[in-house]
């Protein structure tokens, strides 16, 4: 027997001022199923809640409608209240007669009937509510950090410091990421390596942190608190335990290729460490070029290794482990500037990107820190910097601002002056964005050091007589400018990793039109994703500089820590549910599920005299977030959303149209 109690709130004069509350109560009493109606001055107050509890008991209410404010305000309050009176909290429905009625209509003659309709809707819905029970799921208190750049390192350190185990998965042979490639950092001009490498070592030596380099996440299943992750640890061909990092193998290796770490400006061997401070400080054999693997010959490294660490027979290891939370810190990469045909990158060796310049400036770089132009090794006298290459350009690149380029270009100009005092620097820019602590001052400094900032775009670069002719426009002067440069540096945009969408799919999170991972809310949940238990750190979420990256990494770590502080999670019971007798098993629902929460299930049942098996959809309630997209995709009507069932919504429609 359905016995609905309706509690009409005055909300002081907030509701009663413009809605005839007495009339609403009177009409509510006539709605079939309603057995008790009362009015309260403030239903959310202690006495108000008491009266609900009392009425539930006295009138044997099994459903409650509170006609008051927005459910976004007090639904939880009244659910808890009902629960304290022994009623399942999901048998409570709110009728929003304040935000949607009393506050927006001043004429009582229209607001009162509308309030009645709203109550009628709520009653129609609540009559079709069924008790729901959140279930609890245990939390595996281990975190996975994907990406071993500064973001991943920071997040791992913070989580581990809180006492939880962390695994960092990095696909390169070393952690360190982009920051390791940088020479100095703005605006303080700290040496990048000097501040990064100690952290790398900290991470590597932390008892709570396990670092898997040369490894990739292949698959993530499960849900918050219970992710199951498959990691492929690629064969290094070097036994890390035996290797003493003496480096003799590298020395003797006969094969080399362009060094990725040096942006192709130098070479590395087939057995190599990306850079001397790599962590782990063990070489890796690049099987693509190693002659042992390509031609079955050589094997010099094995012969020269004093500790017998080189192991050609090593195989990829596949680890499957459980984690309670995941921090994605997969970073970003550099825009492919080749699409700017007018700049001639790729055709003219002296047109380089900012990151390439970093390597030319860096003392660990191919030129030992001397800025020499790639074509002929000459010291450049005139350097042109071009900003916004690939960013803020809808035609060829991306519309967004890449954020760090203004500052690193200023840094480059300063460093250029420091290294080659006689050099002159031109910066072609659209705007200078120097929002950040000490940033504007830093930019000023580069100007004061003589960098010429030209507001305008470059239309063409072409070589002529050993120089690069940079043609552009100074839009402030309205003139064509032509600079004869020795070196051109393109401030290439930060863009998502090419495989970011693939990673997003593995993580079950969304990404924006460019491929940056989407946060759950741009303001209020900037490090969470819409998949519970997956957090974001660093440039995988959008372009940012080092301080921002580190801050976000620590924030993500804090989220992980607060998740791990609970021993169990309770799940939202408003989840999708399948009526297996109706389900045809087309699994179209699983297509539209943003959370990969719908799986295929084989059931066995009697059909006439036979036993048959068939496929049905099955909802993983740990993963389901209750959006309901699947219910509309389901033609059979087999998929329903608890708390928002088809029956309920149709009843609401009907109640509103009476």
């Amino acid at each position, binding site marked *: 027997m359905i016995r609905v109690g309706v509690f009409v709130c005055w909300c002081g004069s907030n509701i009663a001022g413009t809605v005839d509350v007495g009339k609403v109560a009177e009409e509510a009493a006539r709605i079939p199923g309603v057995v008790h109606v009362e009015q309260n001055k403030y239903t959310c107050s202690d006495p108000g809640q008491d009266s609900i509890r009392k009425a539930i008991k006295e009138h044997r209410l099994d459903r409650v409608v509170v006609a008051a404010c927005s459910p976004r305000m007090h639904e939880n309050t009244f659910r808890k209240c009902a629960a304290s009176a022994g009623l399942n909290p999901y048998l409570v429905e709110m009728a929003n007669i304040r*935000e949607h009625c009393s506050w*927006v209509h*001043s004429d009582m003659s229209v607001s009162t009937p*509308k309030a009645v*309709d709203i109550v009628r809707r709520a009653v129609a819905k609540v009559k079709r509510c069924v008790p729901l029970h959140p279930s609890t799921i245990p939390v595996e208190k281990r975190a996975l950090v994907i990406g071993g750049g500064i973001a991943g390192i920071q997040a791992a350190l913070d989580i581990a410091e809180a006492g939880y185990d962390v695994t960092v998965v990095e696909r390169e042979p070393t952690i360190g990421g982009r920051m390791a490639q940088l020479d100095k950092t703005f605006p303080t001009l700290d040496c990048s390596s000097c501040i990064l490498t100690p952290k790398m070592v900290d991470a590597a030596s932390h008892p709570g942190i396990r670092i898997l380099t040369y490894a990739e996440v292949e698959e993530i299943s499960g849900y918050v608190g219970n992710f199951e992750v498959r990691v492929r640890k690629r064969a290094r061909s070097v036994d890390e335990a035996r290797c003493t990092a003496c480096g003799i193998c590298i020395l003797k290796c006969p094969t080399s290729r362009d060094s990725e770490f040096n942006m192709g400006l130098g070479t590395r061997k087939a057995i190599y460490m990306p850079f001397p401070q790599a962590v782990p400080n063990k070489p890796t054999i690049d099987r693509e070029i190693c002659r042992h693997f390509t031609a079955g010959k050589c094997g010099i490294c094995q012969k020269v290794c004093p500790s017998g660490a080189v192991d050609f027979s090593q195989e990829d290891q596949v680890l499957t482990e459980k984690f309670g939370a995941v921090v994605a810190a997969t970073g970003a990469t550099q825009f492919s500037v080749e699409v700017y045909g007018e700049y001639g990158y790729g055709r003219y060796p002296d047109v380089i990107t900012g990151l390439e310049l970093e390597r030319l400036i860096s003392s660990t770089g191919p030129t030992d820190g001397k800025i020499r132009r790639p074509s002929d090794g000459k010291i450049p006298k005139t350097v042109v910097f071009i900003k916004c290459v690939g960013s803020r350009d809808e035609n060829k690149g991306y519309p967004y601002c890449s954020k760090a380029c203004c500052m690193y270009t200023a840094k480059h100009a300063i460093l250029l002056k420091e290294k080659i005092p006689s050099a002159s620097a031109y910066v072609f820019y659209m705007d200078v964005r120097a929002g950040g602590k000490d940033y504007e001052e830093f930019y000023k400094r580069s100007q004061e050091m003589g960098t010429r900032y030209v507001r305008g775009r470059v239309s063409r670069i072409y070589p002529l007589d050993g120089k690069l002719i940079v043609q552009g426009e100074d839009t402030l002067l309205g003139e064509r400018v032509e600079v004869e440069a020795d070196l051109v540096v393109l401030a290439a945009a930060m863009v998502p990793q090419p495989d970011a969408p693939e990673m997003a799919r593995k993580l079950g999170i969304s990404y924006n039109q460019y491929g940056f991972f989407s946060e759950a809310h741009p303001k209020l949940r900037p490090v969470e994703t*819409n998949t519970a238990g997956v957090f974001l750190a660093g440039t995988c979420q959008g372009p940012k500089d080092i301080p921002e990256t580190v801050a976000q990494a620590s924030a993500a770590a804090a989220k992980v820590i607060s998740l791990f502080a609970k021993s169990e999670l309770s799940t939202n019971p408003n989840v999708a549910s399948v009526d297996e007798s109706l389900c045809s098993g087309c699994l179209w629902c699983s297509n539209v599920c943003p959370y990969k929460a719908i799986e295929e299930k084989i059931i066995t049942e009697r059909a006439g005299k036979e036993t048959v098996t068939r496929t049905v959809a099955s909802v993983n309630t740990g993963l389901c977030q209750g*959006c309901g997209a699947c219910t509309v995709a389901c033609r059979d009507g087999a998929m329903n959303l608890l708390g928002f069932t088809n029956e309920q919504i149709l009843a609401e429609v009907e109640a509103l*149209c009476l």
Partner: protein
Amino acid sequence: MSLDWQPKIVGFTCNWCSYAGADLAGTSRMSYPASVRIIRVPCSGRINPVFVIRAFQRGADGVLVAGCHPGDCHYSTGNMYARRRFLIARRFMEYLGMDPARLEIHWISASEGQKFQEVIKNMTDRIHAMGPNRKMREIL
């Protein structure tokens, strides 16, 4: 049609954006015609176009479907599906002869109380001018 006839608009709104937008209109005391009655669903992806037909059948003069702006879905992609569904469903309803003004779909964010107000005002005006809906409607 009497002068004080007020259209009846059934509004389906997602919980996170459009319902909240309507709440904001309320907290900001933005008055609008008392024509709309809202059904709260978690996401615009939960709104079955068949619900819309049902509303017209039962006597709604207009139906509003509202959700987060594409790209801002709380569930990341629900409104993208809603957009596809309603792109074709709305055209189809028109094809069956339903006046397009009677079914409106809007993206209203939680911060767009004013937009909610305007949408309701405009929709009410348009439907008011057209009079009660008789198409697909059952007579009791």
